[in-house]
Structures are given as structure tokens and as C-alpha cells.
């Protein structure tokens, strides 16, 4: 406690960001340290798990120090430690979990293992201070594409998810195929702004009627087939057009399904979360579709869309309020379900 505020230390190391944050009363960000590894992994064309794990270990304690220092607090002021325990890369997750357990043990404070995806949703509590459940959430990130009903704090009901590739994975794969490189999401988004989204007719995959699930793996094949056909015919390929048309095929399905889900469950708000929530076209399209049906769309600022410790601290705070506690036997669960 400091100045009457309950302080949570949040730790996130599920992929390629080492992130630590101090959050007051589950809502106020006092510090948000993010040490990214993107520069290291770029030379390999994607995240190399072994390198990510090594790097997390080297950075984690320094990130904790910086988070405390920037928040102007000391370890004695921390009331709770929250940590991502899944889903993610196992070698990366265990660095955060080992550190969080050590902090909880050394400082005699409670520990909460947080589902990374719940954290992404909680990022919205940090951005929109009056936001409270219930709402419908759309969580789109490098590894996940989910539509989630949130009836109350600390309760997330997944009503749809991807059956193969996540949206972010599809972006990465297509970015690689058309030579845009890693990380695919922002690069496709940027190229698409210069391209014509109606140039190439990528097939939208809606699956069976009423389903809130997704399937994006076919889009990569479509993109590959298109590129082969064009190359064989000796036609020049417009990368921006491919990016724009591909992106449209992905975001149109996501936006439509999210809005339909909100309508069916009677939710007046859609809360976006995850790295792909930063995609400019997805934001634009979902806002259009939602406002036409009287639904409000909320999203965190880009820095809170990417992996960060603050969202984990916020989710941990609400889990703690709901009476949850993790033991010292907390383990990393790489394939943790929603």
C-alpha cells in the first residue's frame, strides 16, 4: 500500500517482451516497463524460443527494478504479484513465473497466476477507467483470435475462436510470402494503406451459420496460389494490393462476427484487445459495423494492445478481489485455454 492505494506488480514474459509494471487499485499505471526483443528475432524471421528464454532471464530483474523505481515505490509497498502463466512459449513463461514466485515468497505477498488472454481484456480497464463488465470482447493477437463474453470481472466465456491459424499468424505468414518480413501485422497494415483492398478477391471464410469460430489458414494458400499464378503469367505483383486485399478478407470476417456476437448476447459494448486490435483497418471496419447497430467499441491505446505487465497486474487485481490465490506450486501452462 502506498498513499492508500493497493499496489500490484504485474509480470509478463509469454513471448518476446519482458514486461513489468506497477498498477494502483487495478486501474492506475504507475510504471509500465517493456523490454522488447523484436530487434533480436528479426534476423531469424520470427521469434526463436530458446533465444527469447535466454533474453528474458537476462532482463527480468532489471525490468523489476525499473518498474519499482519509475513507480516511486519499494518492494515493501507491493501488495500483490501477478504473472502470466500461460498461454505462451514455455521457456519464456517460466522466467516470469519463477521470478514472480520468488518475489511473492521473499516479500510474503500473495501471488496470482494470470491467463495472458484475460490480461489483454483487462488492458481496457487501464485505458477506460469507468469501464465495467458486462461486455463482449474481441481478443486478436499473434497467437489468438477469440470472441469472449465477459459477464463480470474475472469471468471470461469464450464463444468463438480460431480453428487453425490465429489472425496474427496469418498476417505473419502472408507477410513472409510477399516479402514484407517480420513482424507481419504492422507491416501488412502499413502496406495495405497504399493498396486497393478490392484488387484481389480473397475468399471470406464464414464457416457454418451461427458459428463465431474462425479459420484463416486457407488465406495463406490463396495468397500463395495467387502469387504463383501471377508470376507464371509474367505479371508484376503489387505487394500493397495483395496486403490490402488479404487484410480485408481477415478483418471483415472478424468485425462481422464480433458485432453479431455482441448483438446476440445483448451487449452494448465491444471491447477490443490484443496486438491485432491495433490494426487500423480492423478498428475502422468494426466501428462502422457496430455504430450502425448502436454498439459502442472500446479499445486500448497501441502500447496497451501489445504484451505488457500492466494488463497482467490489472487482471491479477480483479482475480484477487474475487478471492483467487495461486500457490508456490504455480507452473507455466503453455497451452492454457481461455
Amino acid at each position, binding site marked *: 500500500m502506498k498513499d492508500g492505494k493497493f499496489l500490484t506488480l504485474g509480470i509478463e514474459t509469454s513471448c518476446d517482451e519482458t514486461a513489468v509494471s506497477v498498477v494502483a487499485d487495478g486501474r492506475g499505471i504507475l510504471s509500465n516497463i517493456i523490454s522488447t526483443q523484436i530487434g533480436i528475432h*528479426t*534476423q*531469424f*524471421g*520470427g521469434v*526463436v524460443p*530458446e*533465444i527469447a*528464454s*535466454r533474453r528474458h*532471464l*537476462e532482463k*527480468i*530483474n*532489471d525490468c*523489476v*527494478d525499473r518498474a519499482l523505481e519509475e513507480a516511486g515505490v519499494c*518492494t515493501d509497498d507491493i501488495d500483490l504479484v501477478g504473472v502470466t502463466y500461460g498461454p505462451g512459449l*514455455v*521457456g519464456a513463461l*517460466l*522466467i516470469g*513465473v*519463477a*521470478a514472480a*514466485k*520468488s*518475489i511473492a*515468497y*521473499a*516479500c510474503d505477498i500473495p501471488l496470482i497466476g494470470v491467463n495472458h488472454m484475460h490480461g489483454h481484456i483487462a488492458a481496457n480497464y487501464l485505458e477506460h477507467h469507468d469501464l465495467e463488465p458486462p461486455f463482449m470482447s474481441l481478443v486478436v493477437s499473434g497467437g489468438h483470435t477469440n470472441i469472449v463474453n465477459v459477464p463480470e470481472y474475472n469471468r471470461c466465456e469464450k464463444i468463438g475462436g480460431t480453428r487453425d491459424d490465429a489472425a496474427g499468424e496469418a498476417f505473419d505468414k502472408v507477410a*513472409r510470402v510477399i*516479402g*514484407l*518480413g*517480420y513482424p507481419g501485422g504492422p507491416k501488412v497494415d502499413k502496406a495495405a494503406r497504399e493498396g486497393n483492398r478490392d484488387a484481389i478477391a480473397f475468399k471470406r471464410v464464414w464457416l457454418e451459420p451461427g458459428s463465431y469460430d474462425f479459420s484463416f489458414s486457407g488465406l495463406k494458400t490463396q495468397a500463395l496460389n495467387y502469387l504463383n499464378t501471377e508470376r507464371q503469367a509474367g505479371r508484376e505483383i503489387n505487394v500493397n494490393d495483395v496486403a490490402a486485399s488479404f487484410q480485408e478478407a481477415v478483418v471483415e470476417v472478424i468485425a462481422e462476427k464480433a458485432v453479431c456476437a455482441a448483438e446476440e448476447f445483448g451487449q452494448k459494448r465491444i471491447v477490443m484487445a490484443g496486438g491485432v486490435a491495433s490494426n487500423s483497418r480492423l478498428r475502422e471496419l468494426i466501428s462502422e459495423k457496430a455504430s450502425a447497430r448502436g454498439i459502442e467499441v472500446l479499445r486500448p491505446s497501441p502500447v496497451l494492445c501489445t504484451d505488457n505487465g500492466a494488463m497482467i497486474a490489472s487482471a491479477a487485481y480483479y482475480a484477487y478481489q474475487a478471492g483467487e490465490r495461486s500457490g*508456490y*506450486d*504455480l*507452473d*507455466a501452462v503453455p497451452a492454457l485455454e481461455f
Partner: protein
Amino acid sequence: MINILALETTGKYGSAAVITEDGRVFCASSETEMNHLRDIITISDEALKEARIDKRELTHIAASRGPGSFTGIRIGVTTARTLGQMLGIPCIGVSSLESLANQALERASRESALYIAPVINARRHQTYAGVWKACFTYGPDEGTVIPVFGEKQYMIEDLLELIISDAAPCGGKVLFTGDGIDAYQDIITEAFVSGGVSDQLVFADEEIRYQNAVSAARIAFRNAAAGQTVSYNDLLPEYMRLSEAEQRLREGTLSDKIRKAGQI
């Protein structure tokens, strides 16, 4: 005053040991294979309770820094770093190989073995290994080990050639220890037989063959007494091997497609 918590998670079974000012050691071990992350705090707490030491009375945190299981190394080192950071005390890194060599010292004394060779299995004929000379000048309990061949990654065949051509001719026995025995016992035996020095070969019993925090704690105790400590941020793993991706990058065998995508 010296009270050290030492963590050993580089092998199959994790353990934690507390060594106190008077040199007594209290140890707790994991009962499940490769359960390091789940058990590390629990076994540390058990060892502290056994020793009747409060965690705030600890003066140092030690960790076996490798070589061994990459995952295990990271769990032990991260825990030691963070406990050191939070409790405001220095850290000590211990080599898992040196720890194995020390652990085999008593057995070496009984067998009159001159050399101790801890060998950790790194798969596909690779090992992490070193060779130490056993010294018993002050009696078995106060013996020490002196490095002969440096700790590094060896092909088992290269290591054996080195030992048989350089160490064995001195006439002393060579005591092998570590989980490398489980993988390469036949290869080791065959090399000693064909070198005509099979009477100089000894294998450590299973009770002392694997990494244990007790040995790490004893080494840490000596280091602490000698002032050989580091700040938590400087306690780093000894993987003894680059990641596969870095190896390929260095050798230029990273797939063309990946390199091309990465450059753009």
C-alpha cells in the same frame, strides 16, 4: 555469519540446500522428475525450515548455473537472482560439473582415483564435461579438486581420447560421474578396454552420480568465505552452447527464406 540457500535444478531432480555458519547442510529434493518450476520455492522453504533459518537471515543465494538442462538452469538461476534481488543479498554461481566432481571426492578417495571426470549428457555423442584432479592432502573430508581439462562441450570420443592419452598414463584411476554415464557407459568402457587401461576405470554409484544442491552449497560456502560473490544481475547461466538458431546464423546455414525475410 554465513547462511546460504543453494539451488540445483540442472539435472532431472531439483534440490535445494541450506548451509549454515557451522558448515551443516540441510537439503530438500523434488520427488518428481523435471518438476523444477513447480517445486523450487517449496523445496527451498523446506530446506530453510529444516535448518531453522528464516529467509531474512540468509546471507547469500547460490545457484548451479549449468551446464545441464537449459530449462532447469533458467529456473534455478532466475529464482536465485530474484531471491537475491528481493532479499538484498549477493548471489553465487556454481558450476554443475565442479559440483559433481566435489560430490565424487569421497568415493574417489576410497577408490584411490586420481582423476574425476563429471560428464553430462548433451545428446548425440555430445557431452558437457571437465576433468579434475582429486587432492586428499588433508584427508577425504577436506579434499579439493583441481581442474585438469577445462569445462566445455566435448564429443564423448574426443574427451575419452584426451583422458586416455594424457591422464591415464600417470597410472591413477579415473572416476567418471554424471548422467553421461547412463548414456555413454558402453563407449567409455570400450575406450578404456581398447586403450589397455580398463583397470583404471571407475564409475560413480547412482547415489552420487547426479547433481545435488548439497555439493553446490558446500562450494558456495567456500566462495562466500573467499568473498567470491556477484550481484543478482550478474548471476548468469552457463549453457555451454549457443542456441541452434544462433549456431546456424554463425555457420551461415540459416534457411535462405528466413534470412531474406529478416533482411527486409
